[in-house]
């Protein structure tokens, strides 16, 4: 298990930090690996090991959020990030506001797909929802962002 922690700690920690903040992320990551140590026998190789770990981490984060009376809203993921660079075509502050205006379900799939690099199927496994729901959430989230970020005349009906 120590080898697995060494290899997978960073993505598990980042996953937790984006959900419940850096203060609680270490505890959630630790609980994730301790739970995995007990349940690794149940891992059947149908998903990747990381997906298996993130499924546990997701439950740990939900429990910790509940205990600490906080919401996993993902609204702070883009707080304190860098300002627009020369490469930026979209104003960073407008993007932050547009992301903030999404529902937490929509931000969640954006974080998981765009930042954590998970496939639709992996996200579906971790959240225990159908892959079609992941697809429609991402589609709708991008439509909402487009509506907020582009002038009305550039948005197709």
């Amino acid at each position, binding site marked *: 298990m120590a080898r697995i922690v060494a290899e997978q*700690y960073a993505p598990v920690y980042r996953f937790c*930090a984006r959900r419940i903040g850096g203060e609680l992320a*270490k505890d959630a990551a630790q609980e994730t690996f301790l739970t995995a140590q007990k349940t690794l026998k149940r891992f059947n190789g149908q998903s990747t090991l990381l997906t298996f770990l993130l499924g546990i981490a997701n439950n740990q984060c939900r429990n910790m959020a509940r205990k600490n009376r906080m919401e996993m809203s993902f609204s702070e993921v883009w707080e304190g990030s860098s300002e627009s660079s020369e490469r930026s075509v979209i104003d960073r502050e407008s993007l932050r506001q547009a992301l903030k205006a999404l529902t937490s379900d929509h931000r969640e799939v954006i974080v998981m797909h765009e930042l954590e690099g998970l496939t639709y199927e992996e996200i579906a496994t971790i959240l225990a929802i159908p892959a079609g729901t992941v697809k429609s959430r991402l589609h709708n989230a*991008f439509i909402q962002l*487009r509506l907020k970020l582009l002038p009305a005349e550039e948005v197709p009906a």
Partner: protein
Amino acid sequence: MSIRDDLKAFVDNELPAERAEEVRLAIEQDPALQQEVTFMKLLSREIQESAAEPEIKGAAEVIDVVRKKP
């Protein structure tokens, strides 16, 4: 299902091959769809580049903890 409904999944390479080909052909023939695809890719890049990256803490400690557990 309209082509537009599948654009994001197309960009993400998440469509079955046959549907992906249908969407690809539709995009090829429609400048408005091409613009949407370009914007989606741009938006993905901006979302990634503008997110704050959490600083990793506590790995060594957690390795110690799991080593001590049977």
